């Protein structure tokens, strides 16, 4: 999970579960596709180490947030699909609330900081 140079590994680790839950809320998916989608949506800034995604998925499955089934890929290869469970949906909503709260506080502070710096520049000039 900790391959990214741009984003702190603690943040990458903390955001893994909400991201996985959100992706699976849209549709069933599998490991490789989840990694590729996160990479694409973050313009390459969020790159998960492939091998570390699976322990996270397994932990979430043991906690009853997601479930899995073996299916087949387009080429006939075996592939494990994951989907969201009811408890996972509840957990996802909680994550969204918490992340939205943090984001709103940070955005608010950033806005205040910006306003203060603009004011200071006006006074100086």
């Amino acid at each position, binding site marked *: 999970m900790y391959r990214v140079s741009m984003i702190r590994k603690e943040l990458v680790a903390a955001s893994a579960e909400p991201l996985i839950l959100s992706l699976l809320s849209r549709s069933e998916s599998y*490991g*490789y596709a989840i990694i590729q989608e996160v990479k694409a949506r973050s313009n390459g800034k969020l790159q998960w*180490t*492939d*091998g*570390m995604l*699976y*322990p*996270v998925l*397994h*932990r979430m499955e*043991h*906690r009853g947030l997601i479930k899995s089934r073996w299916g087949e*890929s387009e*080429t006939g*290869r*075996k*592939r*494990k699909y994951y989907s969201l469970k009811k408890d996972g949906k509840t957990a996802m909503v909680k994550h969204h609330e918490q992340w939205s709260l943090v984001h709103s506080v940070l955005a608010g502070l950033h806005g205040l900081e910006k306003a203060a710096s603009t004011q200071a520049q006006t006074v100086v000039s």
Partner: protein
Amino acid sequence: MFNLEKSIADWRRQMLAAGIKTPVPLEELESHLREDVAQQMKSGINAQRAFEEAIQQIGKADMLKKEFEKADGMKVALTLKQYRTIMVACLGVESLFWATCLLLKVGNLSEITAAQQVSGLAAVAVMILLAGVGLLGHGPFPVGLIRWATDLICISRGRLLALLWVCFFCYITEPAGFLFILPKFDRGPLWIMLPPAGILFGFIGGLEKAGMKKTAAAAA
């Protein structure tokens, strides 16, 4: 000349040797590896480079094993918590059932004397005490026995249901049958039945705490 299938087979052997289990999670990791290799080859990268890049992305076997062990550890902890709750419930039902039968002198207990009644209630109290000792993780059980029991009962929910059925049959329905069928049923069988039941409830219900205590003691 690079042979992709042979390289994947070698990688599988290394993973198995490092302790990554099959089919879960090794089959899933292999599926991912093949998918990654195929995608890279589609974009023009040769098989060898694609394979090397893909196994690097998956990560080293020892790190993966540590992460999966953490995930498995959580699974066992959750199941042991469930067993604890169930054993406490069984203890509660068992205690209530026999205390009620003794106090109200139900069935074949209708002619027991006061001394016999007290003796029967004492058997119930001893059951609760023995269960309490086990549930708090204070049981004198060796680490090997704790680990064996944890592995045995945590394999599937089927084992949990089987245990529940055994508890219900051995400690409720069968004795309840004796209460109303045998001509005489007094506190003797209760002393044979209830204390061992207490030890069983305490042992199974206390596996989580006992395991944690032994681990902490070993670490110290």
